[in-house]
């Protein structure tokens, strides 16, 4: 029998499968589970956007596109980032269309990182940065953001984590799973630290359209002096409810984008053609769709925060994405215990905070990407669970 482990890459074998897997295997085998665990919009892609995708197929546009993505799409992305976030990118050489934001993150890390380089990853965060860093030969250096800072990255925490080997800082805001956002003043404080060191920043702004309250999301590239050090990653999944189309992009300095392009060219060729046609329509006529969805999320967010706090699952008010990150410490259980008991006794699925890094212990991620009715039913069950499990 072949000993595959001796033939396979040590790094990939050392990587653990996503911590949420086990949990979802439980959820999938149970009937009538009410889930508040999903990480994608519950809306379907706006119809006019879907129609453009369909129309492109009808006309037989089924070939590869240019490696960077259609020129028209890049032109629209350029206009969009300028219009919504005040940063201008040259569509000819500063924009790369990718297969979802995830591919752009992978390309960026692999393009920047070589053996032994350190990548600063604030956690709790989306699960992909750490394994991608490991695969690129880098060393993930975790910065634990704190609930008393509303899970923002502070300049002090950043400064303390930088070493001569630091090459890249990941800025995952608005944040999955905490819903934390970085306001302009917080980003400016980060920028002051970055200025002193020769490092790059990967700003994952995939939830950039989903912020609540008066201030809109501020792109890190909009902070003075930072555009030349920043690779912005975003995409269509969250803003336009287009997760299944798999389309994202990277924006950055030409010398970085051109290197990322080589990797993309050899590994992927070009992002899905149909999705690119649909995305052009989304960028041209989709601003009001974003606003409609954002208002819906906002209403759900206020409901869920209010109700969870009333039940004693306190959470700071999340200002971005579509997640709440309540503390479950009053239960006296670990995150995993809490979520397992909740699903077995009340059939409500939420995600243990530890799935997003060890520092997520004591918290759980609750998604509000569900209809109000669905959220309401789940809340009733969570409250029942708490009353049946008094401390």
């Amino acid at each position, binding site marked *: 029998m072949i000993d595959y482990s001796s033939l396979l890459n040590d790094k990939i074998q050392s990587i653990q499968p*996503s911590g949420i897997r086990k949990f979802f295997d439980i959820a999938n085998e149970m009937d009538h589970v009410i889930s508040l665990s999903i990480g*994608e919009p519950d809306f379907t892609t706006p119809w006019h956007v879907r129609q453009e995708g369909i129309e492109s197929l009808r006309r037989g546009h089924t070939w590869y596109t240019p490696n960077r993505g259609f020129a028209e799409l890049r032109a629209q992305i350029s206009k969009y980032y300028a219009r919504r976030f005040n940063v201008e990118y040259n569509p000819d050489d500063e924009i790369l269309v990718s297969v979802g934001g995830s591919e752009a993150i992978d390309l960026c890390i692999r393009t920047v990182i070589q053996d032994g380089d350190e990548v600063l990853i604030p956690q709790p965060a989306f699960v992909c940065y750490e394994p991608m860093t490991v695969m690129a030969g880098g060393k993930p250096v975790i910065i634990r953001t704190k609930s008393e800072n509303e899970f923002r990255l502070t300049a002090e925490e950043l400064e303390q984590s930088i070493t001569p080997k630091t090459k890249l800082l990941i800025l995952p805001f608005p944040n999955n799973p905490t819903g934390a956002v970085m306001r302009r003043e917080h980003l400016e404080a980060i920028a002051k630290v970055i200025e002193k060191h020769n490092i790059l920043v990967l700003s994952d702004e995939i939830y950039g359209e989903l912020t609540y309250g008066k201030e809109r999301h501020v792109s890190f590239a909009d902070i003075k002096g930072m555009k030349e050090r920043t690779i912005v990653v975003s995409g269509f999944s969250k803003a336009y409810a287009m997760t299944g189309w798999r389309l994202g992009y990277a924006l950055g300095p030409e010398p970085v984008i051109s290197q990322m392009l080589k990797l993309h060219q050899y590994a992927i060729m070009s992002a899905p053609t149909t999705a690119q046609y649909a995305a052009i329509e989304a960028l041209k006529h989709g601003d009001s769709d974003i606003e409609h969805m954002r208002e819906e999320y906002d209403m759900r967010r206020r409901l869920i925060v209010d109700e969870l706090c009333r039940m004693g699952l306190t959470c700071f008010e999340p200002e971005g994405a579509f997640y709440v990150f309540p503390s479950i410490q009053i239960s006296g259980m670990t995150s995993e215990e809490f979520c397992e008991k909740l699903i077995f006794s009340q059939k409500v699925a939420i995600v243990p905070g530890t799935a997003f890094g060890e520092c997520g212990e004591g918290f759980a991620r609750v998604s509000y990407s569900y209809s109000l*009715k669905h959220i*309401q039913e789940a809340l009733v069950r969570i409250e029942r669970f708490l009353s049946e499990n008094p401390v």
Partner: protein
Amino acid sequence: MNKLLEILNKSADFTTAQLAAMLGESEADVKKQIEEYKEQGIILGSNTLINWDKVPDSGVTAIIELKVTPKPETGFDDIAKIVMSYDNVESVYLVASSRYDLIATVKGETIQEIAEFVSKRLSTIDNVIGTATNFVLTQYKSGGAVFYDDSDDEEQRSLIL
């Protein structure tokens, strides 16, 4: 559109505290607003959405088009009033169309019962000059609620990340 009414139209089950949280207003204001809507006849009540397709022997529904000659004084209103006075008539609308003027949704035990109701009760009303009966086969969506069960599609979604 008015947010409060929009939420209530989808579900009447929210407490005023929940509604207040969603709208970012005080509970007292929300209560007061609901009372006002009731007084103004904007909120008339709430009922439960039932998928009758899943209830055995729950009968049939038909959408009836009526072509009428409006009366000199009261126009369409008098005719509509007669149509809506029947208990088995669930809704009546006046529409702008070249083919007909009123549309009524009618429920009955059997197709024959509805056919009989149309020929004996509706088409005999003064000034009704023609009817067309459309029997409902499947209700996909009604009152903003989706009735068509496509849960099989959902199972293919990724639940992680």
